[in-house]
């Protein structure tokens, strides 16, 4: 079954064709990598998929539901969540609170219940805190729970960002450069996390420049260049594809 099906997607910024007639599918429970040289349109594609941008043309179907007209937050509610290339953080909240934000959709949020501290609200807070701590422990950053995001290492923040979207119990994750700027140990950790996610049946589409990581993780790779699809296939195919080699290293 296809988790995500993109057909003839186009996004132009003035004369620049950031994405042009792009099609791809991501199978449910698979790890799919999106690679390409700088400026190929990878992040624009993720922005269009997640709803940060609206595509000019083409269709996006997520588990057979059409997404084009849905806003960013509505797509997140359907279970399509993303991380950002540059960390997007709530600076004045600590790590635990940042992750608690992720549970928003599964909690009681009505204004009246919140104002009068209804029994439902009273019960959900300790429960959700436990869940968030468990999630942090699973990713190995439970020790940092009480620290502000400005005080912890970059690698922890990267993991925290994944914990935050996992808290939203997504069906599919769009990860924009999940291991960029991390050391070997942290990279291995994040790769293990992503593998684990796929085993749990979640689809993952990730952008990455670290080829070791891409080749080890991805079951399928799509290569983009100048907003169009250059090649697609298994890591083996991509490694030997002449067009891809030309795009990366020049002829």
């Amino acid at each position, binding site marked *: 079954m296809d988790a995500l099906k993109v057909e003839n997607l186009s996004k132009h910024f003035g004369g620049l064709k950031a994405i042009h007639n792009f099609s791809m599918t991501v199978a449910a429970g698979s790890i799919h990598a999106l690679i390409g040289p700088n400026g190929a349109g990878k992040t624009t594609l993720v922005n269009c998929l997640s709803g940060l941008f609206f595509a000019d043309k083409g269709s996006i179907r997520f588990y057979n539901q059409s997404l084009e007209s849905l806003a960013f937050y509505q797509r997140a509610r359907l279970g399509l969540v*993303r991380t950002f290339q540059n960390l997007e953080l709530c600076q004045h909240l*600590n790590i635990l609170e940042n992750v608690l*934000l992720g549970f*928003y959709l599964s909690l009681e*949020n*009505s204004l009246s219940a*919140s*104002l*009068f501290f209804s029994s439902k609200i009273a019960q959900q807070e300790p429960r959700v805190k436990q869940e968030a701590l468990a999630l942090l422990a699973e990713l190995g950053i439970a020790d940092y729970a*009480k620290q502000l995001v400005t005080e912890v290492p970059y690698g922890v923040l990267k993991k925290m960002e994944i914990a935050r979207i996992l808290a939203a119990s997504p069906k599919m994750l769009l990860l924009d450069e999940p291991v960029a700027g991390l050391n070997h140990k942290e990279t291995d950790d994040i790769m293990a996390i992503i593998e684990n996610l796929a085993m749990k049946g979640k689809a993952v589409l990730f952008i990455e420049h670290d080829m070791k990581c891409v080749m080890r993780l991805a079951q399928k790779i799509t290569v983009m260049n100048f907003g169009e699809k250059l090649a697609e296939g298994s890591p083996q195919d991509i490694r030997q594809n002449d067009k891809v080699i030309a795009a990366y290293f020049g002829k």
Partner: protein
Amino acid sequence: MNKNRLGLLQRFNIKRHFLFFAIFLLALPVVFQNNFHFDLATIWLLSATACLGLNVLVGYAGQISLAHGAFWGLGGYTSAILATRYNLPPLLCIVLSTFFVCVLSYVITRPILKLRGHYLALATLAIGIIIYLVLRNESDFTGGPDGMKVVALSVLGRPLKNVFFWYYLATSILLLCMWMANNLLASSFGRALMSINENEFVSFSLGINSETMKAFVFQFSVFLAAFSGSLYAFYAGFISPSDASFLSSLEFLIMAVLGGLGSLYGSVLGAAFVIILPQFLLFFNEYKSLLLGLIIVLVMMFAPGGMVSIIEILFFSLYNKIKSKADTGADAKAKKKHGNKNL
């Protein structure tokens, strides 16, 4: 510093000190010597209630409003008109006027809440000025620039003018509203609200509909402003367009910022500052405003977190001192024990 270890939510959670604060307010009349003190305190508490809503809006959700004075004044006027011109029972007037102002503000602010930052400030400023102009110019209803008299608040035909009654009414309303605001901010709703202020990308990416959220919290703050404004009209027995003017809106914003944005106690402190401090400066006659301005500038320069941050810093340095003393004491004891064991 110790407080840096806490996230925003815990740092401003008022629960720990709330009981002390409530007792303080309840016991405060002990020091009042005359009706003027009661009068000042009642106006302070009512303003603090309105400011509380504004602080939630500006300090937590990050949405600025320069129209809250107008909503406060409009609440007062609506109550006054209903009670004085239509002879409705005052309690009903308060309910109706609060409801009316909330509905009106929802209709006019829903479209402009899409704006951000300075643009939102400008749009709310315009709304506030429109409300002010309408109140000033519709003299048939509002009495024009001279304002209008308001009948006294009465329950079952008995007018209530007792200073104690008003003081404790205002106190209980403020405490109730603080409790509600604290609940709101400590819940998942409050967290989502802060994420909108901090980073709207995060809230979007987690499925938080920031527009509805902003509308909700704007309504909450308008509700508090209109409600306390209605009460104020009945309390003062007189209302004039200057209560709904831009200056009045600005005063509420000064209360919130000066007291400490993102702190519920800050609103109370800020309101005390703006309402009560000028009375101490009366001695300086025409230099009063100058001095007030100077104090505001100084506070903002040296404590951008507002007056509550000054208290926080004092409190924490004291706390750390006591703690370090206790620690060294405990260390010495431990050493002694350890030494004894060795012997």
